[in-house]
């Protein structure tokens, strides 16, 4: 893929060159255009539905806190999911699309040995590709969120407050991490599996199983562990389901985008006795879902580390 290499590359900056070239490849590629089109259409539909719902209850909605964020978290007929759910479901595709052929694609085209004959270290190749993927994902999600916010302002005459903007920004960064997990997963599969088509099928398979059947699997495991006690089964199910990045992401998103969410998972009536309905600050919300954030970052790091290590040990002269 790299037709020309920089004549001299300072030591330790080779990954930047790789990232720059990869980014140029990704932008305006067919997969980029298709993905951003799909995401923009579904996001616009979700936000239109949400803003319509808010318009209908305008007198009651005026003055409620963090109304702007409701654009992203509520929905009305006929759109079945709010914006956040759309992103949680579709954004993994971004990571998979930009990662599934990262290494084995180069290998198939026979460009990997040529690439490594340049004064670029082997680790810089995989790091550069990962960073380029993250960058294009960040651009895409950032643009999508801004576009949708603009739609909301246009439809409702509703102006986001600084704290709401901050929450949205944190949420976008967190979403990039979440998509980064799928990018890392796709990359590591592309290292391990020699054919691009196979690696795409494997990662899409994992994504589909987790998002469509994850709930059933976790419930089965939860009731197996919890036995006859329904509360214990529910707790076990919740604990097990937190292995899945989808669960981590949706829990963290709910707290980040809704200041009234003060807990995730099971809350007993005793815990909320005499609790006052109030809004958390952003830092408090971050504290509530800090475990989820840390877990997701760690998951991403582990999966990427796996890709990194296996790539470093591979024989490139295949």
């Amino acid at each position, binding site marked *: 893929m790299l037709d020309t290499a920089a004549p001299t590359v300072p030591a330790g900056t080779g990954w930047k060159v790789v990232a*720059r070239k990869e*980014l*140029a*490849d990704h*932008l*305006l590629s067919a997969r980029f255009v298709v993905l951003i089109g799909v995401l923009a259409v579904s996001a616009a539909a979700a936000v239109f539905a949400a803003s319509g719902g*808010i*318009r*209908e*209850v*305008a*007198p009651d*909605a*005026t*003055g409620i806190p963090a*109304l702007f964020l409701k654009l992203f978290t509520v929905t009305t007929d006929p759109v079945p999911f709010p914006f956040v759910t759309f992103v949680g479901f579709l954004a993994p595709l971004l990571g998979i699309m930009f990662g599934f052929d990262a290494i084995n694609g180069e290998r198939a085209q026979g460009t990997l040995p040529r690439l490594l004959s340049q004064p670029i270290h082997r680790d810089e190749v995989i790091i550069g590709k990962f960073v380029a993927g993250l960058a294009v994902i960040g*651009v895409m999600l950032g*643009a999508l969120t*801004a*576009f949708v*916010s*603009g*739609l*909301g*302002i*246009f*439809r*409702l*005459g*509703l*102006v986001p407050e600084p704290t709401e903007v901050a929450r949205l920004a944190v949420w976008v960064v967190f979403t990039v991490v979440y998509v980064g997990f799928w990018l890392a997963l796709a990359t590591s599969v592309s290292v391990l599996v020699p054919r691009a088509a196979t690696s795409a099928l494997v990662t899409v398979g994992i994504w589909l199983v987790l998002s469509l059947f994850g709930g059933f699997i976790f419930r089965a495991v939860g009731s197996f562990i919890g036995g006859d006690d329904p509360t214990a089964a529910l707790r076990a199910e919740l604990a097990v389901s937190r292995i899945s990045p989808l669960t981590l992401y949706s829990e963290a998103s709910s707290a980040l985008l809704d200041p009234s969410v003060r807990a995730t998972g099971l809350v007993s009536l005793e815990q909320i006795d005499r609790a006052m309905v109030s809004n958390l600050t952003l830092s408090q919300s971050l504290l509530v879902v800090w475990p989820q954030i840390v877990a997701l970052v760690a998951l991403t790091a582990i999966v990427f580390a796996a890709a990194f290590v296996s790539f470093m040990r591979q024989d490139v002269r295949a």
Partner: protein
Amino acid sequence: MRRTIGLLFALMIFYPLPALAQVEGQVGLEVLYPGVVVEPGDQATFDLEATSTTPRQLELRVDGLPEGWTATFRGGGSDISRVTADSDPTSFDLNVDVPADAAEGSYRFRVVASDVGADLAASVDLEIVVRAGAGGEVVLTPDFPGLRGPADATFTFRVEVRNDTPQEVQLELDASGPEGWRVTARPTTEEQAATITVDAGGTQRVNVEARPPVNAEAGNYEVVFRVRGDGIEEELPLTVQIIGDVALELTTPDQRLNTTVTAGQPSQFTLVVFNTGTALLQGVELSATPPRNWEVTFEPEVIPEIAPGQSANVTATITPASDAIAGDYRITFRASVDQAEDSVEVRATVNPSAVWGLVGVAVIALTLGGLGWVFRTYGRR
């Protein structure tokens, strides 16, 4: 004291003799009220009973009736001249017509029942006292002689018609009021009846209904209830007090109850107050219940006066909250005087202010521009 006891003894001894008027112990003639007081021109009626130890036919006659008076025996629904007496008393009536020119005073005569063949007879002495004004009259008594209410009410007087005369009377009902009023009188028991029959000494109840014209002004009005018949004519004046009706209606000139406003910007909305009552409206105050943080002012805030049937325009200035989200809101407008009020609910549709519409478009444009910049800067050349 001794004289009283003596008198009582005398009564005990002689009492049966005149009352039973028994002659020779075989045939009897009795009357419950041997003396009757009537007006000149009226008829006196005596209830008589004839008895006999064995069944006999008795011939009836009246002795000593004053000249010009006529006496008729009535029994079984017809005029009679003879009666069959038995040990059970046989009842019959004697009607005596007193001429209209009869002088006042006491007139005595005798009724004789005789079995000519057996030479048996019984008689009873009767007395008619002729006295002017003795006949009694028809009296009209309202439950409430005066009623008060608004012009659109129906006033119903309940009147008792009492017949104090000794005869049953038939009375024609009639009622009248001021011009434009509809006044009817009918018995409570029958909607359609125009005449009533009142037994001697009995009563009937009549409803007199008065309906004023809708535009009747405040004031006192007289309604007259009359009964007529059998030489009787009685009038009963009744009073209706109409109080001025205070009523108003709040609406919009074209009946449209919605408007479009822009967040944070004043817009005007015209309302109309109609005086639908019959009294002058003074000091009509206008108020509104808008959503929170909205402002509504009126020009004028108080309408000094509106004549009956007239209307006045009011301009409301609606300023939605500057952070109002787009959507539909309810505003309740209210016009009130001391005794009446009316309210109208208006749906205000807030459009996002043009500024924020532009901001939204700008955000979208900036996003697309930013994407373009990323493509140009980092994309493949």
